[in-house]
């Protein structure tokens, strides 16, 4: 078996293959020089300086050894022949395999930097350490472009380090396109509670400075003085290396319900797009928990007969830590869904809200309400009706 992408989905997939008794050869190809590591701490504990890099390893050395895999780290896959099942590497070699698991994840969307220093994106360990070094040098102001989850976490971490922070967001409310206007507004308030200078509804025209960034120019003609900039405006799936492979690419590697992209080829994690039968929707999920579950599912798909293949039908779930708030979202929500608060209140910033669409419960959002999120996540999985779920909450 060959696994391309040596991160969360790829590593957990390899572990699942071994756990299920696969004892053939496993080759794992990853273009980062590092052993597999965990990304969520990169915008949280590691960036805050609370953890050191050793702490973010995904598995200890012994567990990695037990996988008995042929690791090709620091090696990029540059092509795939789906029919022949071969992967071409950047050193000119080829790996051919009975089954191939694609787990190349995603990378950050970028803005033109005009060649200035001090402008970063955050995806990998090296990005994190570079930003951390910048924060260590006591900048006057940090500008965060994009108030999505990564941007929000970077802003929170920088504020907790006592730095001045401006967050620039093109939408009128942060996360408005995901959580809807009402809940997005709560996210905005959480930033303001913590002294963030929040600029909403403005885009970035460009950066200015001498060698190093000094100023961010905004679309409304104003500007923000900042000596460190972190851009968090979303990610792009890493599929370029698959051009011409024979696989269907469309905002990710397109798979069937079982995570199969072509005979003997599966995809998992941030790079995979598949029809989730639970929601009747084609989705690509950029969450930690999905990378594990889908990595495991896709690994099993590779070694199972077509007749035994199971659809992959999870309720997506993720968390984001901002300041002292633990925000969790389960399900698949849209801005125009019905939203009902079922516990706590937005004023106290501790609440749970249910999302409904066409009479069905489709999501649950929690601010410091972990138990509610898991409870209603289970109800989403069972296909519960929206009003029924609200009733259950009233009886609690």
């Amino acid at each position, binding site marked *: 078996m060959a696994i391309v992408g040596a991160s969360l989905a790829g590593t*957990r997939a390899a*572990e699942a293959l071994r756990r299920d008794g696969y004892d053939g050869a496993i080759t794992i190809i990853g273009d980062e020089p590092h052993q597999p590591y*965990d990304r*969520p701490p990169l915008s949280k504990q590691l960036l805050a300086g609370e953890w050191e890099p050793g702490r973010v390893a995904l598995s200890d050395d012994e567990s990695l050894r037990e996988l008995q895999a042929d690791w090709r780290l620091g090696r990029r896959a540059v092509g795939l022949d789906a029919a022949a099942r071969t992967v071409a590497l950047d050193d000119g070699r080829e790996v051919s395999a009975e089954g191939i698991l694609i787990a190349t994840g995603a990378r950050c969307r970028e803005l033109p930097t005009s060649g200035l220093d001090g402008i970063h994106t955050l995806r990998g360990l090296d990005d994190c350490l570079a930003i951390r070094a910048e924060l260590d040098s006591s900048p006057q102001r940090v500008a965060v472009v994009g108030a999505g989850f990564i941007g929000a976490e970077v802003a929170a971490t920088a504020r907790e380090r006592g730095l001045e922070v401006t967050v620039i967001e093109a939408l009128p409310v942060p996360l408005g396109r995901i959580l809807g206007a009402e809940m997005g507004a709560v996210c905005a308030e959480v930033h303001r509670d913590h002294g963030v200078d929040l600029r909403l509804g403005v885009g970035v025209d460009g950066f200015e400075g001498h060698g190093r960034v000094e100023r961010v120019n905004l679309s409304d003609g104003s500007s923000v003085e900042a000596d460190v900039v972190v851009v968090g405006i979303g990610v792009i799936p890493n599929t370029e290396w698959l051009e011409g492979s024979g696989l269907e690419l469309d905002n990710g590697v397109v798979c069937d319900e079982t995570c199969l992209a072509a005979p003997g080829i599966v995809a998992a994690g941030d790079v995979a797009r598949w029809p989730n039968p639970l929601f009747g929707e084609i989705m690509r999920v950029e969450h*930690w*928990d999905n990378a*594990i579950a889908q990595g495991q599912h896709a690994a099993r798909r590779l070694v199972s007969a077509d007749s035994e293949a199971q659809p992959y039908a999870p309720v997506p779930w993720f*968390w984001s*830590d901002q300041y002292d708030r*633990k925000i*969790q979202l389960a399900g698949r929500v849209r801005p125009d869904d019905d939203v009902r608060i079922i516990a706590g209140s937005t004023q106290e910033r501790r609440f749970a809200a249910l999302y409904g669409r066409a009479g069905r419960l489709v999501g649950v959002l929690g601010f410091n*309400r*972990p*138990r509610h*999120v*898991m409870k209603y996540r289970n109800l989403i999985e069972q296909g519960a009706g929206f009003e029924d779920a609200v009733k259950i909450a009233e009886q609690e």
Partner: protein
Amino acid sequence: MGYRVVVDYYLCESNAICMQVAPDVFEVRDDDFLYLLTETPGDDARGRVNEAVQRCPKQAISVAEE
């Protein structure tokens, strides 16, 4: 050789992932805290405990061999 389940309650955020994987070992109660139903679940539960260790997003669970 047995093993003991150890939870770092400072890291744990009570998101109950572990409870979904091994409900016989982990329980998040109405007070939003995680409780260990047993520290020594035995060999039968080992696979599920290992899975919970991996699935805990906060790396809050570990296993001490003894």
